[in-house]
């Protein structure tokens, strides 16, 4: 090959690079390792983590069983090692599955259109805010303090330099958005109010009521979800204008925080304001049904500085995992799964001091009956149980409270041990 190019060595090919940019040292990275050594290295890392612990952590990342078939599907090279389906004629597999994904997201959320995925739930929130600003031509965003704290941090980062002021809305003593605070702050400069349901405390917000208040003022209602399993049983936010959320619960392993799959769904009329990729139905030269990426004129590679977002690569493979998961559980299975989560969480909640009394799904906030959260959790760690999230780090006023999640994966005897630890 070198001969064909008229070069003697590969070094010749880069000889022309200016000497003052060449890196002539050796990279300080150890020599290549064998596959065996690499597998061994990560096995060791793995054992430095929690293994064999029962966990009651949720807070945006949930421990659900992943059916084996999900891995079977995403391990197929045809899905795993293909690029974004720009060449529709040889990408119908991916395009068809994304079309199915978009459809199922609509069916779940009660929205009319959904995109092909966002990075994750947290980054989908500012995208929704920016979209609302474009739609309403207003600039202010109100966000409930019951939205995942890290999601709120991400919103702050994104909006800082885009002239989008953000204000937070308080929660009441039942753990729900404080409607009075909402009414107080809702004025004609507000583009959208952002709400999470089930909220960070696991509590169901009053979406219909809130949507009336919000929409009557010409603002959009954005509803966020972090626990997709709830959608199998809980009434979806049909009255919202935009729904964003996280599908990690659908067969995506917690993987220490990512990769996950965010979604954004909305009403048909806003389709041209939606960020990210969309797959649409069309026909091929023979008139047979086919799918392709569509409405690219919203996107950065065509619209550049006028694009709806700068997002390019999304989370396609994770969206496929969620698609397979939704397919396997299906209409009945997803409901039954949600019912099991509801039952487990309420079994546990009945044994712990509840901080709030509004209805919740599979997470809830426990108050204290004397013992500190730290004391309870370290006692549980002894028993190889990771207890609830200590809320002080996000809500100073709840420093004695912990956030507990129970899913179909949590065993009764572990829940009973938690109750003991609370000394109840």
């Amino acid at each position, binding site marked *: *090959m070198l001969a064909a190019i008229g070069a003697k060595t590969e070094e010749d090919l880069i000889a022309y690079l200016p000497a*003052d940019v060449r890196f002539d040292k050796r990279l300080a990275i150890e020599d290549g390792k064998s596959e065996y050594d690499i597998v061994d290295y990560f096995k060791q890392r793995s054992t430095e*983590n929690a293994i064999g612990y029962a966990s009651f952590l949720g807070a945006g990342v949930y421990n659900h069983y992943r059916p084996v078939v999900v891995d079977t*599907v995403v*391990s197929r090279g*045809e899905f795993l090692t293909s*690029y974004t389906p720009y060449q529709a004629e040889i990408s119908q597999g991916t395009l068809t599955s994304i079309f199915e994904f978009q459809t199922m997201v609509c*069916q779940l959320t009660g929205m009319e259109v959904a995109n092909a995925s966002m990075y994750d739930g947290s980054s989908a929130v500012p995208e929704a805010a920016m979209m609302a600003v474009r739609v309403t031509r207003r600039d202010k965003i109100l966000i409930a303090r019951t939205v995942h704290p890290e999601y709120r941090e991400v919103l702050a980062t994104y909006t800082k330099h885009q002239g989008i002021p953000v204000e937070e809305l308080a929660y009441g003593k039942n753990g729900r958005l404080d409607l009075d605070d909402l009414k107080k702050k809702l004025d004609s400069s507000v583009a959208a109010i952002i709400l999470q349901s089930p909220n960070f405390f696991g509590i169901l917000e009053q979406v219909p009521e809130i949507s009336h208040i919000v929409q009557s003022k010409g603002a959009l209602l954005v509803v966020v979800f972090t626990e997709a399993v709830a959608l199998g049983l809980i009434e979806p936010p049909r009255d919202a204008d935009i729904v964003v959320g996280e599908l990690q619960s659908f067969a995506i392993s917690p993987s220490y925080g990512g990769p996950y799959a965010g979604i954004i769904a909305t009403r048909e009329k806003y389709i041209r304001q939606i960020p990210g990729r969309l797959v649409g139905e069309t026909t*091929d030269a023979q008139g047979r049904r086919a799918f392709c990426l569509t409405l690219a004129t919203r996107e950065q590679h065509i619209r550049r500085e006028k694009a709806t977002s700068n997002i390019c690569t999304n989370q*396609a493979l994770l969206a496929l995992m969620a698609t397979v998961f939704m397919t396997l559980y299906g209409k009945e299975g997803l409901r039954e799964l949600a019912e099991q989560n509801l039952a487990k969480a309420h079994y546990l909640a009945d044994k712990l001091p509840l901080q709030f009394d509004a209805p919740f799904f599979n997470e809830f906030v426990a108050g204290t009956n004397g013992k500190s959260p730290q004391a309870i959790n370290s006692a549980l760690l002894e028993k190889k149980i990771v207890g609830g999230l200590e809320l002080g780090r996000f809500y100073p006023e709840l420093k004695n409270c912990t956030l507990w999640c129970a899913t179909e994966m949590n065993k009764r005897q572990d829940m009973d041990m938690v109750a003991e630890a609370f000394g109840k």
Partner: protein
Amino acid sequence: MIEKVSRHIVQEEPLLFELSSPGKRGYQLPELDVPAVDAKAVVGSENVRNEIEDFPEVSEFETVRHFTRLSTWNYAIDLGLYPLGSCTMKYNPRVNELVARTEGLAWAHPYQPDSLSQGCLETIYALERALAEITGMDAVTLQPAAGAHGEFTGILMMRALLEKRGNPRKKILVPDSAHGTNPATAMMVGYSVENIKSNERGMVDVDVLSRVMTEDVAGLMITNPNTVGVFEENIRKICGILHDKGGLIYMDGANMNALVGIARPGDFGVDVMHLNLHKTFSTPHGGGGPGSGAVAVAKVLTPFLPGPRLNREGDAWHWNYDLPDSIGRVRAYYGNFGVLVRALAYIMAHGGNGLRQATLDAVLNANYLRVLLEPYYEIAYKAPSMHEAVFSDDRQAKKGVRTGDIAKRLIDYGFHPYTVSFPLIVRGALMIEPTETESKRELDLFVDAMISIAQEIDESPELVVNAPHSTRTLRVDEVTAARKPIVRWTPKTAASQAAD
């Protein structure tokens, strides 16, 4: 005569919703070990939904078959050359998939105590160090989810530094050859975009740059090697021009596969850059993601990195949230950890020398293609190519055949097309990046195909204009798709379908 591929039966398959029949399901739950609860009673009937209308109802076997059949309609790197310029479609080592699934890593919860997460933290640290070494930068954040997300993170840090210095400034300079994410990103950080014209060699024009570089300019977003695959020979001078006027340099590292081990942006003056771990570092594209857009920064920018950051206390790692100057989070948790594991495994398998060798092989493969194709296609710029070669369809356009047609015809020859019509500064661009993992055999077959197509264009252009001819799905009508968008299945669409 096309010998690389032949035609074979492939299974057709309806959509899941058309496949469903009531009561079917693909999964059985474990027995509930606590009392069942009445949903309406515990959350209130107004909060309980009716059945999810039209949601799939199929068996496990039908699920396996459905997605297996769909998969056979895809092209993939595992099936053949995938020469998408700027995308670095290299082999995705399978061991990386295995290690990313190691139980203690794949099932680690982001909020489990640091003391029970040392394996994850060590992994993150090891990758940060390796990427800092490769880029010649001071520090690295692994939080961004993809390249564009990394750009956003980087420009935010630039702005934070400039604000700290007293003036965030107004503009970001972007060469007209830049990827669309660059200008789109600048806007999201509140900057206006000034495009600067490339010179006749496809590079940033230093004189133009000096002229437009003012105190209003926050910085320049430069891609190096740039999107025509050419190394910006004046990169040091360019950095100097920016720095002299108090501006900063952002480097889009999407093309880092051309530099690893042979040149380090940190050494030649770049202040901040992103890496696409799903390109240079072999993590699979998965049909469009996930990615990871690690961002590396020079010392001046380290205070502004997104949080949390790793701290070593005693013999353990901890997350540090006390970062007064940080730009804050760009996403929840710590990044696409599962992708990071794969990238680190790739780096470990290659080692320092192996990484450098991969770069040389990538450059060799690209130049091999360039030399063999130049007699038939117009090279966009005479300047030497690094990891990719960009041609223009000028000669073929005279026959009424455009780059998009040649791309579709390549499909009949058994290849995925190159990147079409990008960068925009090249008329009818054919952007070809083979990567280092391709064999000479596959490259030669690609060259034969391209030459054969060039001849077809002379003899029977319609053959090319109407391609592909051998695929299950023929050329797709993207115009209608966009005119009246159908982005979800509904019983209605299905009906109208049947009607056709």
